[in-house]
């Protein structure tokens, strides 16, 4: 049979631009990345290499392809042993026992040396996700630097995400672009859909969507980080101002027979959270940036505080509360001391407002025009409302409601009042300023140092950003036998189904074209290396 080669076709489905860099940076940001794909193993592994999840420097890449529970368990156990052996040889110095309990397992596996990767097939995954083996699987997988699951059904994708959510105290993010990713996107804490040629199913099911994978870096490292920071600051602020406000009534209780008499008039209380102090805090919660975005992208380490819950935890909460109480003490007792002989004055509300705004002014790290407007605007609004409420007109209309006619004009004309306001504001804020300054000096955080870094590094990264880079796309070749023999035998004309991925092929593929491959098959007459068009993508 003589055949004449007419030509060759290939389908190229390029890896998106920027994927390897994104994955590299996210790994630096302490984010573990797993690949769950419906592609076959070779494709998935090739993708792994082309986007730098798997590297040649890795100590070992474990492949789990067992078809039965026992086989899978055995393979996982062998993988664990190898990892622990290596760490022992490095010299961790504790005795290894044959049967290790699961909690010890975790601590042992966390201390491994070397980089490992795990590749697991869909049918093995089905066994590994069974109730008795899932923890073991999870521990093994988490000990590896990269995990690639191939031939995964959509349900299994969701199951893997579920597994991580259940046993690990981690926040999960699932990103995908096809309809088969929808279940995974819905299961994860954060679902990201990539809108593109696959359609918009993933987009419809997701919390965030964009068009390129590389935007994930910006989403997490810039916006995610800022969002966490803003939320924490906002919360701290809100608790602080409400504590300061409410505790003043607590102190006043000692002096008014605990009769629940309020220090401020009711309208002030009503409007306090809504009008006077809401907008500046909101502006801070929406616009604050501690580090400019370029730096945020450059220093993935800055992502850590969010993962470790550093910015708002019990300790921070108590600090907030303590600050609120301290402020309330000053805000009550200083005017008390000044006006203790009982001459009439209602200075506290004005005081409250000024102190609040002073503190917000301090906390805002990043001033925009909106921040300024809100802060000064709130203060101005307070005084405007104060004068309106204490004006004659309103009093004439509702004498019982607006009893404080004349208060503002008379009290604010006294220099004592302004002196008290000034003193209290300063005494409230100065310790905070002092603490902050000392903290910056003695224990600066990464974000502080990054902020202080000189601008020289800016043009360095500008160059990097501009170029798209002529990347070679990631091609994946399948190194299996392919369909040549089948075609030549003519059997493809029959209804018998084509063979699926044949196990036992191990390939190491190096990105860049130089590949070595050793195919081992049980029943094989000829070795045929046939580059078959493989679909590279997702």
């Amino acid at each position, binding site marked *: 049979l003589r055949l004449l080669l007419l030509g060759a076709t290939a389908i190229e489905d390029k890896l998106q631009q920027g994927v390897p860099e994104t994955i590299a940076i996210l790994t630096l940001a302490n984010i573990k990345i797993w690949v769950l794909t419906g592609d076959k193993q070779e494709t998935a592994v090739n993708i792994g290499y082309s986007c730098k999840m798997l590297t040649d420097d890795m100590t070992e890449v474990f492949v789990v392809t067992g078809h039965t529970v026992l086989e899978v368990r055995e393979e996982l156990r062998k993988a664990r042993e190898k990892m622990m052996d290596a760490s022992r040889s490095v010299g961790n110095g504790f005795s290894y026992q044959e049967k290790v309990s699961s909690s010890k397992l975790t601590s042992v596996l966390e201390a491994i040396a070397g980089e490992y990767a795990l590749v697991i097939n869909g049918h093995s995954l089905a066994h590994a996700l069974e109730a008795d083996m899932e923890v073991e699987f999870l521990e093994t997988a988490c000990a590896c630097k990269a995990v690639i699951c191939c031939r995964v059904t959509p349900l299994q994708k969701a199951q893997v995400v579920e597994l991580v959510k259940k046993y690990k105290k981690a926040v999960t993010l699932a990103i995908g672009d096809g309809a088969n990713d929808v279940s995974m996107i819905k299961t994860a804490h954060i679902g990201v859909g990539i809108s593109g040629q696959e359609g918009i199913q993933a987009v419809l099911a997701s919390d965030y969507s964009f068009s390129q994978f590389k935007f994930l870096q910006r989403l997490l490292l810039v916006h995610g980080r800022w969002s966490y920071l803003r939320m924490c600051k906002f919360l701290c602020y809100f608790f602080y101002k409400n504590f300061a406000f409410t505790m003043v009534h607590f102190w006043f209780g000692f002096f008014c*027979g605990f009769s629940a008499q309020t220090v401020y008039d009711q309208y002030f209380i009503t409007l306090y959270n809504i009008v006077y102090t809401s907008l500046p805090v909101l502006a801070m919660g929406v616009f604050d940036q501690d580090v400019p975005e370029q730096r945020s992208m450059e220093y993935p380490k800055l992502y850590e505080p969010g993962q470790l819950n550093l910015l708002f935890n019990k300790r921070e909460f108590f600090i907030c509360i303590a600050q609120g109480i301290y402020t309330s003490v000053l805000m009550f007792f200083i005017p008390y001391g000044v*006006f203790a002989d*009982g001459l009439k004055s209602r200075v506290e509300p004005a005081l409250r407002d000024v102190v609040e705004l002073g503190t917000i002014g301090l906390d805002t790290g990043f001033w925009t025009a909106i921040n300024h407007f809100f802060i000064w605007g709130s203060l101005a609004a307070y005084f405007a409302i104060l004068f309106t409420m204490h004006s004659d007109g309103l009093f004439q209309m509702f004498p019982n409601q607006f009893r404080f006619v004349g208060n503002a004009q008379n009290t604010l004309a006294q220099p004592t009042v302004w002196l008290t306001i000034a*003193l209290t504001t300063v005494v409230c804020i*100065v310790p905070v300023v002092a603490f902050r300054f000392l903290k910056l000096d003695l224990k600066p955080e990464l974000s502080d140092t990054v902020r202080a870094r000189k601008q020289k590094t800016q043009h360095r990264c500008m160059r990097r950003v501009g170029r798209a880079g002529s990347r070679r796309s990631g091609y994946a070749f399948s190194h299996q036998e392919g369909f040549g023999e089948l075609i030549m035998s003519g059997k493809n004309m029959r209804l018998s189904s084509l063979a699926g991925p044949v196990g036992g092929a191990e390939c190491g593929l190096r990105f860049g074209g130089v590949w070595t491959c050793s195919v081992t098959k049980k029943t094989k007459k000829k070795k045929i290396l046939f580059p078959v068009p493989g679909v590279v993508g997702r």
Partner: protein
Amino acid sequence: ANPQGPSNNSSLVMSLQFHLGKVSFISCPKLLGHVAETVKRLHVPPKRCYGFILEFQGDIFMYYGLQNFYQNHRRYVISRSDAQLLGRNVNRSYCTPFTTYRNGTPMAPCGAIANSMFNDTIDLFYNLNSSAIQVPVLKTGNSWWTDKNVKFRNPESYNLSSAFAGTARPPYWHKPVYLLDEEDERNNGYVNEDLIIWMRVSAFATFRNLYRRVKRIRQFADGLPAGNYTFRISYNFPVTKFKGRKHVILSTVVWSGGSNPFLGIAYVVSGTAATLTGFVITAIHLKLRKKKTYFQK
């Protein structure tokens, strides 16, 4: 300066404490006594008053002070009717139980605040050559303009007693509201300044209210000349019931107000603290900078 606001900072504050006794003073023999800062309770015979030596210069304000009188209790604070004090007819108010008598007559003014108004009369006499001259004082001009002219208005009628026809005085009062000041029609009724000042409740249990101002005429043009003075007090306001105390306070005024030196002390203390903190922080900063450069080398 607003007489209600500021109080003395620099000069002496003389305060006398009254004995708590169930006596009422109308007139008294002259008695020279020491000015005692703290006076123990004594059971005193009736018809006594206090004399002392003092000298003041400038504008002099006379206050009455109360101690342990909780004008800031919530139910007390709301027990008033500002609409009524504007001269309007009110049906509903928070004045209970001081709204109407059993026979249906409304009280004017209603409420616990008005009912408990301070009603002692304090007169100051200057003893000159064995004759006692009453120090001329001003009854008006002691309250805020807005209070006197906006917040408190008498009901309209052709004369004051008819304006309050059909109402009765509150139970603790000796006189009805339209007889609070028979000499000055503009200080009578609801716009009586003593009432106005009392109705502006204080925030703490120890407080003082402006009572009178010394009128600077005749020999008091520069203040109170040195000599012997006597207070004659008609003791009406009962303070023993609630273990309170009353005082009379004379003081002058400075611009910043604050008879207590608290504000001044507070400023000094916080200024010192801030300066010290500044020094400490600077020291730490410099020391750290040296350390940093050392390590960098």
